[in-house]
Structures are given as C-alpha cells and as structure tokens.
C-alpha cells in the first residue's frame, strides 16, 4: 500500500464525515434555510474530499479531468438549487416551524 492509496483513504473518510454531517444537519436543523445551509455547504465539501481521494488513485489524465468536472457541475447544480428553494421560501413567506416540514 503506497502513500497515494493511504492519502486516498483518508480523503474519502473525510468526505464521508462531511456527508454524514450534512445529513445530520438536514434531519436535525429546525427550518428550511439552515437545512439548505447544511446540505449545500457540508455535502459539497464532502464531495470535494471524495473527488480528491479518487484523484489520488486515478490512473490517467482524462479521468482526473472528468472527476473535477463532476465536482464543479455538482457545485453549480447544488448552489443554484439552493437559491431556487430559498427564493421560493422567501417569496411565499411560509412559516418555517419544524411542524410545517415534519412530513418531509
């Protein structure tokens, strides 16, 4: 087992940790805005770590480019989805209590 493989495992575990944090935040946070915050920030960081871990063990340049592209696209997608949900919530002025969202 060489250095790159060990680094890869460490980065992937870090990514998994951030994903876990994001998911716990999604379940435990009280309102939509903070849930969005947990989802977009923690999960994108987690995905970034996992991509970094996979780059460590990838064999060719096109693979690395594709992995980075996946991360960038996920960043763009999740940040704009976050904006749309937040904007919708803001404009419809829904009450943000936990009861309101409890069935979701």
């Amino acid at each position, binding site marked *: 087992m060489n250095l790159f493989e060990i680094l890869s495992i460490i980065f992937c575990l870090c990514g998994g940790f951030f994903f876990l944090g994001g998911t716990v935040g999604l379940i435990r946070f009280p309102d939509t805005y903070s849930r969005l915050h947990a989802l977009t920030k923690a999960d994108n960081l987690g995905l970034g770590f996992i991509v970094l871990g996979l780059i460590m063990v990838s064999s060719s340049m096109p693979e690395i480019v594709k992995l980075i592209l996946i991360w960038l696209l996920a960043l*763009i997608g999740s940040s*704009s989805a976050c*904006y749309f949900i937040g*904007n919708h919530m803001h404009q419809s002025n829904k009450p943000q209590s936990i009861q309101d969202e409890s*069935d*979701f």
Partner: protein
Amino acid sequence: MNLIFDLIIAVCLVGISMRIIFARGHFQAIVLFITYGLFLALAWTRLNSPDIAIAEAAVGAGLTGVLLMDTLGAIKTSEEKKMRIKVPLKLAVMSIVLVIVLGYSALQIPSDFSGLSLTVHNAMPLSGLEYSVTAVLLDFRSYDTWLELGVLLTAVIGVLTVRRRNSLTGSALPAPAEPVGRWIIKILLPFMVIIGGYLLWLGAFAPGGAFQAGVVLAGAGVMLWQAGHPCLAVLSNSSWRLLLCLGFSTFLILAASSLYYADQMLTHPQIKAWILGIEYAATISIAICLISLIQASPNSKLDKVS
C-alpha cells in the same frame, strides 16, 4: 465488502418503496420516488450496467419526477387532506405469500445458463461496433428500438390529442427566469449538449449510446423550457413535427430500402453510415419526444391550431 454494499442498497430500496406506499402526502411520495430512482441507478452500477444507470438517473429519477410534479400541481386541490393508508389484512397476507412464492422460484433459477451473451459475442464482428449493448440495440435487435420509437411517438400523439380535446392548460411558456436561472442555463446547457454528443460518440465502443444521449439532451431541453427560454418555442410547428417523427421514419426508410436490396428487413451493408444514421436520428427523436411529453409541445401554436 461488496455484499454489504449490495445489502445496504437493497434495504434502502425496499424501505423507500414501503415509505412511498405509506406516505401521507402526494408531494412526499413523489420526492421519495425520485430518491427511489437514484437508488435504482446505484443498483444498476453495482450490476455492471452503467448504460441503464445513466438512463435511470435521467429518466426514472429526473423526467418522471418532473412529470409527476407537474401533474400534482395541476390536480392539487386546496383542501387536500392527508390520509392515513390502511392495508387490509387479506391484501398484506397475499402480498407476503406472493413474495415468498416468487422469491423461492427466483432462487431456483439455475446459474449455469449463458443467456445470449455467447451468441452476441460471436456475432459482434458482423455489426461493425465494438460495444455489445449498442450492437444489440441498433443492429441485432433493431426491431425493438424501432418499435420503441413507435411507442414513444404514439404516447406523444396521445398526450397532444388528450390535451387539445380537453384544452388542458400547462403548455404555455413559463415566465422568464430571474438572473440565477439565466446564468445556470448559460453554464449548464453547453455542458449538457457536449455530454450528450460525447455519450453518442462513446456508444460505439463503451457504455453510452443513442438512448443515453437522447435522455441527456431531453433533460437540457426541459431545463430550457422550465426557465422560460424561448429558443425551443421559435421552432415552427411543422419542423417540430418533423423532428418528432425523425427516428421512426428513418427506421422505416432503412427497413424498406433493405427489403428492396437484400430481401430482408433491417439487414444492413457493412457501412458505418448506416448505424450512424440510425443512431443520430434515434437520439434527436428520443430527445424531442421526451421534451414534448413534458410540455405537450413547446410550441404553443400546436395547441391553438385545431
């Protein structure tokens, strides 16, 4: 290790499907269904079928989710009460018995059969392609693909007919998106078109092909439409219809011409252009048909002319 992963996916799939059944709100059920599609895509990856994983993630989770949400918005009543789902005991017992019977017989299937993989493997040089799934779809079983395009076209005609007869709403161009919406189109649309073309090119020798490219392009089209971009609506009525029928009619023309030259339907000469023609026509047709299914027709003129 892989078995643990399989077990986790299996438990999640069954759990999500149960929750879809027992979900009290329709919205919740639809969101769970999208999750179900994504877990299925993971299962396809585990089962060495990346082609199906791409199609499932784009169609099963993406487009079906959009369709269900769209319908939910149209049929929702304001005083929709949340119901509790009760399963009668008889039905539950029958389902469990069915699971046991079917599961038992599934496990009795002998594992030493080779299916058709050997036949396909030996016939691969005849097709001029290097990837077996694409060869089956576009060459060996091109009847299936042809009839599938026919089913898709029939569904589009059916949807258009029902919409027009009942003057259902929902096919007008949505309001133009705010800056973020326009920005995301500017970034994502070129990527999606490139990915669609890449998948189409990849299909000759690796997982990818007409279906996957078609569904990715359809996703791009739906995004454009939802953001209120007018570029799909400027296509004239007749050219839209032409694109709808493109895939089916290409197959029809090729089948008729091969009948004329070789006395057999859909046998093809050893030229790349044949397969490429089918592939491109199928891709464009699948994309246009799927877009039409979602918004009936991006050209609202189609709904006005009767």
